[in-house]
């Protein structure tokens, strides 16, 4: 049979042990996943990657749009190319109307024919 002294010492040891266990050991709930290093890190990391992908896609579309606009501007800046026949007909009209001399007509006609 335990004496009162032994009983008291045993009780103190038990209380100390239980208290130390409660104070020093984190107690996670059953089935709980990780928070900061788990769900938070995963969702923040995913959001950063999604944002980066969206920025890259946006930059790609912006570049495509800029290139298309530049091509359109160049097309509008340069006049449409006339065919040789059209150029010769126009030149003949100028000569018939007396706007150019026969010599100029001959020179220009040769230049147009040389482009063929």
């Amino acid at each position: 049979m335990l004496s009162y002294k032994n009983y008291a010492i045993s009780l103190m040891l038990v209380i100390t042990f239980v208290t130390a266990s409660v104070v020093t050991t984190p107690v996670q709930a059953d089935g709980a996943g990780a928070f900061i290093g788990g769900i938070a890190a995963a969702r923040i990391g995913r959001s950063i990657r999604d944002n980066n992908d969206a920025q890259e896609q946006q930059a790609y579309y912006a570049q495509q749009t800029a290139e298309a606009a530049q091509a359109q501007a160049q097309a509008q800046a340069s006049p449409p190319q006339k065919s040789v026949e059209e150029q010769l007909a126009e030149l003949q009209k100028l000569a018939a109307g007396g706007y150019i001399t026969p010599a100029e007509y001959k020179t220009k006609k040769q230049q147009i024919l040389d482009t063929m």
Partner: protein
Amino acid sequence: MNNKVYGFSISALLGAMLFLSPAADAKSALDGSSDLTCAAFEVVGCTDADNCTSGSARKFDLPEFMEVRFKKKVIHITYDGGDKQAESPINNSEINGSQLVLQGVENGHGWTMAVNTDNGRMSIAAVSDELTFTIFGACKVN
């Protein structure tokens, strides 16, 4: 006579333990003596120097509230409509100046949470080799 002495000793011991326990220290409500409920407001996260994103906690799909449970030494959340729960174990906690500082390590991430014991302002910083993030918010006593 002996019964009274030992009975008194046990009572004194239990009384001292209760007196010295955090729950009995009501010096400040935000000093770790009571569990806290914290709200996440804003988040800044980086995967490298040129690849950072910031925004509201909602933008990152983080839970609005988290509970700091000092007796269990965990930070506890519920998410996805309360169906799921997650926790981070607190490995170290101390008060330094007006800051209650909690620290832990989890899944390769080291984290520190600091709560201003005067006004409840809070931030959590977590790091790993490829991701760092900071959550800004505030805490109140449960």
